[in-house]
């Protein structure tokens, strides 16, 4: 699903549709084949990660780099919790209200943030994520650093009562599919093309009549609202939330999903990245202390030697030769001239 713009969807082959249907069926059947609740939990977390990663990619598709994906994730989680626990709304009523609330909030803050492109935007979003965590920790009615416990499960729908992990899995899967559908529709419309134009050349985009500020703000609002959707789910899934869960380097992990999966693959990239980053460290458990180091090394290796990420590398396998690397390093460090230059 590389850069799904409508030009490509014209040419979506039958194989692609078959692949999509198979993956979809697999995703639906998957929890029925799994006994372990723990693995189901990991699947659910991977879905959340995928949604968050996609919000990062959405902003990146317009040339913005956010380190604040966790901010609106937290806003979504807290506001839904308050609406359910303090205002007594049902989960299904709180959900849309949360999204509207976040969208308005994102519009307000985004209007300021988006004015600063480049380095400043990166730092501002990072700091904003920290502000949200601190604000949650300071507010007594949000439980301070201790957070909120005993958040109710989503209200039952028919026979689905969210007592089992499988129910949650289907809920987040539905949310994920919704996000994929919406994002795909965006990327394949002229909105997505305008974002891409701004990312590739803001200068040229301007001379084509594209309002850079307005489109970037739109991306910010949509991305933030999507993150709030994931946050809303997370609060009622984990049933307790603390500011700490949204702080630290969560946003950076989110970014990692997108880079690892492949930056040019706005939808599939973060999904693959999230799955890999959720499951692989789990299987590295034997050396728990070494896990961050290994994650860091993986990150460096991907960035330095496979900048297309997993999907990009699969698509265009690089001709990797140690020799090339060696001569490059010689040139860099010792300043020896290239021998192959004739």
């Amino acid at each position, binding site marked *: 699903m590389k850069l799904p713009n409508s*030009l490509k969807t014209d040419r979506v082959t039958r194989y692609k549709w078959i692949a999509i249907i198979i993956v979809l069926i697999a995703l639906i059947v998957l929890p029925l084949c799994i006994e372990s609740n723990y693995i189901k939990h990991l699947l659910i977390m991977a879905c959340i990660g995928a949604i968050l990663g996609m919000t990062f990619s959405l902003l990146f598709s317009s040339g913005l780099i956010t380190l604040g994906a966790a901010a609106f994730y937290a806003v979504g989680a807290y506001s839904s919790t308050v609406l359910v626990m303090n205002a007594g709304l049902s989960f299904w009523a709180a959900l849309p209200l949360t999204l509207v609330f976040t969208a308005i909030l994102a519009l307000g803050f985004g209007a300021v943030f988006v004015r600063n492109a480049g380095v400043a935007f990166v730092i501002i979003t990072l700091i904003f994520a920290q502000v949200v965590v601190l604000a949650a920790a300071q507010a007594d009615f949000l439980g301070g650093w201790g957070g909120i416990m005993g958040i109710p499960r989503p209200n039952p729908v028919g026979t689905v009562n969210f007592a089992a992990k499988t129910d949650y899995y289907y809920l987040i899967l539905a949310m994920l599919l919704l996000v994929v559908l919406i994002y795909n*529709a965006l990327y394949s*419309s002229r909105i997505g093309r305008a974002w891409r134009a701004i990312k590739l050349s803001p200068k040229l985009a301007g001379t084509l009549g594209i309002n850079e500020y307005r489109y970037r703000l739109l991306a910010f609002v949509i991305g933030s609202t999507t993150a709030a959707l994931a946050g809303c789910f997370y609060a009622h899934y984990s049933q307790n939330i603390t500011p700490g869960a949204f702080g630290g380097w969560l946003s950076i992990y989110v970014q990692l999903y997108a880079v690892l999966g492949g930056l040019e693959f706005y939808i599939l990239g973060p999904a693959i990245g999230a799955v890999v980053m959720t499951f692989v460290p789990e299987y590295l458990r034997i050396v728990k202390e070494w896990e961050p180091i290994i994650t860091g090394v993986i990150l460096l290796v991907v960035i330095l030697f496979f900048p297309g990420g997993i999907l990009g590398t699969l698509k265009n396998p690089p001709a990797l030769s140690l020799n090339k690397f060696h001569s490059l390093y010689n040139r860099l460090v010792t300043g020896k001239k290239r021998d192959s230059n004739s």
Partner: protein
Amino acid sequence: MPLLQVRNITKVFGALIALRDVSFEVNRSEILGLIGPNGAGKSTLFNVISGFHHPDKGKILFKDTQITGLRVDRIAGMGIGRIFQEPTLFMQETVFENVFSGLHRHYREPAWKAFLHTRAANREEAASKKKAAEILEFMDLAAMRDELAANLPHGHQRSLAIAIALACEPELLLLDEPVTGMNPSETAVMSDKIRQIRERGITVLIVEHDMRAVMSLCDRIIVLNLGEKLVEGTPDRIKNDQRVIEAYLGKQVI
């Protein structure tokens, strides 16, 4: 009524006066050339007209509306398209996608309908695809529609830049060095294209170094030197003007 009126434009960068009190008019459906040695202020003038720089003094009227101080995208939206001197394309996109992205101004249906892919929006989208194809055909790029812009040879990159600008449906097209760096036969083809663009009712303002092309192409020529307007007139007059020859070849030194 002239299409574009440039009135007393002055633009200063630090200690450098890039433009000093420049005034001229562009009439509908003419090809107007803007020439002058390097550093004369031609590109600055283009940037002022298209909104990348705001002038320190003076104003610019397009169809009798003042456009000085407006944002780049607003000016483009009013119908002034431009190409840049350096190759400015969506390099990692195909030729077709480049023009298709350029059609932003073409849409009438609101963006949310495009997002929902309503029937009207889809119809518009299909129409715009057709239009992009038509523009590619016009600029002789149809054969390489699926090639990445970055991989095109220089001449075709210039054509593509013009194609993108045409997608914007301009009434006035600013061309910054459209034939520079081309060989004579490519230049002849491109000159011909520019004439055809004019026949479509689009007014053209050209900055160009290739004198042969400028002289044969333009109805009128304005010569800038060191930020000031030196002369204005028909190609024949310009060619024989002593001041122009001096500005170009330089005074005899030593």
